[in-house]
């Protein structure tokens, strides 16, 4: 049902975009001046190859797709988890497609009182909570990164209860 609703809108957008492009190109072409002089009485065709310069302003564009597979603890923490100081809660897959350099960073909302919050790693083993996850040095057709998350646990800090926290993934141009 949603696809049915979206498809006509996409088609309309495509038609409008194509029309705008043609108008722009025509305007540019008309601005080029061409001359072709024929001697009087010469009825041959006057051929001239117009030189058309098309100027395109390509903006830096980046698309970031995020798929979360996080499974936060749901009343299933064990003594072993507390003893370890953490519990693994899964990964978030980030895929960047870009025609320019871009930086992808992470932040989390303030830890709720009674909860130690999350820790993350870009390599799955070093949980150093880097704020910058990765950068695209230039154009990329699809740079994928997996970010691994843990919930931190401490006996005296993580009290029984339900806690909600937001993790933000921010993409920015340098």
């Amino acid at each position, binding site marked *: 049902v949603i696809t049915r609703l979206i498809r006509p809108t996409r088609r309309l957008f495509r038609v409008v975009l194509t029309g705008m492009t043609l108008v722009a190109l025509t305007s540019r072409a008309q601005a080029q001046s061409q001359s072709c002089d024929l001697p009087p009485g010469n009825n041959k065709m006057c051929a001239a190859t117009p030189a058309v310069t098309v100027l395109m302003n390509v903006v830096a564009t980046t698309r970031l797709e995020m798929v979360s597979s*996080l499974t936060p603890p749901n009343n299933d923490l064990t003594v072993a988890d507390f003893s370890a100081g953490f519990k693994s809660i899964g990964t978030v897959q980030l895929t960047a497609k870009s025609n320019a350099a871009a930086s992808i960073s992470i932040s989390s909302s303030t830890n709720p009182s009674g909860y130690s919050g999350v820790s993350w790693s870009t390599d799955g083993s070093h949980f150093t909570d880097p704020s910058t996850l990765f950068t695209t040095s230039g154009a990329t057709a699809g740079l994928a990164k997996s970010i691994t998350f843990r919930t931190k646990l401490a006996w005296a800090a993580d009290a029984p209860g339900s806690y909600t926290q937001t993790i933000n993934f921010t993409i920015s141009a340098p």
Partner: protein
Amino acid sequence: MMSRHSLVGASLVAVALISVSRDASAQSQTVTLPPSPAAVHVTNTVTIGGTFSVDVGSLVQNTLQANPCNPGACYDATTTVHANRGWQLQVTLSQTPANFTVAWIEKPQDAPHPLVAGIYQTIATGSSATPAQGVSAMYNANKTNGKGGAVPTASQLAAVLSYRVIASP
């Protein structure tokens, strides 16, 4: 009775709803630059239950010979409690010993509390979470009346003591 069109329509709606549900659980999002910066979000809800643990430490016979350690012998035990909320440390006997009886000695009154297999006796409490709270306890063990009764060794006593930590009321 439903027509074929109605059935097809209902099926499509069901498929669409299932797709939406899966997307919601996967928390998939896309964002595009410009404008810069742009962000996507993941919201997690963590539910933590009461979690408790006790590490059983040493159990050694002490040299006290006065009441409440006479008759029999007294033993000093150490344990370490871990809890993420208020707690109670309890002890019981894993089985009824054949040759001796055991009592937990409440301090500072030196009041003996006989232990019965399967019935837990609270021996310490804490009003808040603790990463590692050491708890000391003293026990008195005495031989049973009749043939075969004997004061246990520390290891024999340790073998029948069983601890647990529960939430404080």
